[in-house]
């Protein structure tokens, strides 16, 4: 509980990004991105459409190959550059240590498979072969994302948007990943549903000691979820720091514009 214990626990970054760049022909996707993410930290990435935040997330998660730079992840065998890693090793990480929550739950769920099967897939992918245990764990996780146990055999197509998103989160977190990538996780949801999801995510991040990288254009979401914030424009990171500091005392011209452009309720 002592501050120094926390500081000691977090001296090794979970993810170190160095000079990461991705170009689409002559156009910049993202360029010269550098940051460290420490265990238990939630990093928000904000910027307008086309600012490069989604490109950056895809490069970090291994969905896109960057043109330059390193993405060093603290694997159980020590730090490894995931850009240089073979596809097999990267996929193994993606289904054990990483999770990816898509904006549209349809992209992250198997719509033709029951809720229990969706949650169980990652378990089976890492070798779980006991139906009863897989099912118990699926039911447990449905409960943790506030989906009733009697929905375990229903398909996601019978769920509301908010439930689908919570199911996607359960499906991703069931194997106890250490790093979660989220692309506009509250994007298509009603405001009231967003609040519930945000609370759920905060609780899970805290309980599981998760690190997360959240891409969004919603400054209210990052204020409530993210410890740290990166602001992107034109593919470059123009400012980064403590979330409330960046939002309340923005230094860069663009950040000032972004913050002052938010409609007040």
């Amino acid at each position, binding site marked *: *509980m002592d*501050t120094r214990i926390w500081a000691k626990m977090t001296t090794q970054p979970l993810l170190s990004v160095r000079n990461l760049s991705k170009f689409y022909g002559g156009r910049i996707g993202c360029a010269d991105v550098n940051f460290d993410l420490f265990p238990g930290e939630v990093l928000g990435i904000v910027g307008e459409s086309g600012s490069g935040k989604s490109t950056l997330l895809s490069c970090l998660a291994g969905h896109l190959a960057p043109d330059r730079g390193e993405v060093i992840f603290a694997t159980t065998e020590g730090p490894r550059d995931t850009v240089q890693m073979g596809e097999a090793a990267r996929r193994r990480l993606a289904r054990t240590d990483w999770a990816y929550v898509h904006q549209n739950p349809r992209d992250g769920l198997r719509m033709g498979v029951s809720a229990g099967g969706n949650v169980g897939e990652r378990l089976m992918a890492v070798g779980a072969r006991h139906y009863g245990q897989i099912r118990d764990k699926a039911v447990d996780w449905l409960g943790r994302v506030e989906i009733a146990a009697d929905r375990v055999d229903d398909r996601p197509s019978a769920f509301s948007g908010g439930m689908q998103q919570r199911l996607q989160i359960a499906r991703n977190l069931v194997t106890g990943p250490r790093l979660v990538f989220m692309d506009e996780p509250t994007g298509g949801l009603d405001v009231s549903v967003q609040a519930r999801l945000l609370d759920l995510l905060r609780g899970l991040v805290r309980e599981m000691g998760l690190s997360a990288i959240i891409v969004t254009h919603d400054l209210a979401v990052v204020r409530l979820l993210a410890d740290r914030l990166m602001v992107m424009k034109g593919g470059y990171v123009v400012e980064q720091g*403590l979330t409330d500091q960046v939002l309340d005392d923005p230094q860069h011209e663009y950040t000032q514009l972004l913050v002052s452009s938010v409609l007040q309720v």
Partner: protein
Amino acid sequence: MITITNLSKSFTLHNQGAAVIPVMAGANLAVSAGECLGLVGASGSGKSTLMRMIWGNYLAASGSIMVGDVDVAKAAPREIIALRRGTLGYVSQFLRVVPRVPTVDVVAEPLLTLGVGADAARGRAMALLAQLNIPERLWSLSPTTFSGGEQQRVNIARGFVHPYPALLLDEPTASLDAVNREVVLTLIEAAKARGAAIIGIFHDEQARARLCDRLVDVTQFTPGMAQ
């Protein structure tokens, strides 16, 4: 516990012709454990600005802000996060929470973040809410719909749920009735007694007189306002 040395701050407004507004220069102060320091000065003199800089919410231009052994003016974000988690408490005038989260969980959250068990954290939260006269029927509701006074007390409960060694209090008694004001003053006195270093802004002069060991007029740090 808190030592500020030669601190300065200015705002650059890029969208208004890059106007540079200096708001603080040459600020110095120190607060020891068990001491309460009151910030005074006219409106706009920079009391809240100074407090936000100590909290790490505003960036310092130069100088240092030592809280324990961390220099907030130069610390990395994660060091400030760790500081806020266990060392530095802050009761602001505004309650900023996730909508629809029950009040008791809002208050318990700082303890959960520190790894305290859910039952123990909620127990501590409920005891504080009861002490602050928040009716029990409200505990399971989100504080976003509460009155100003109730929100203020929820904020105070959040700030006192963990025994932070250092506390920042921004108008903690502002919108409270006499009974609750007394409860809050008692809480602050108890925090002093256990050794917390406290920096506060109190417009309530009686409260200021009762709590503060020393006063610092921030006007002396304000460029263009110094006498």
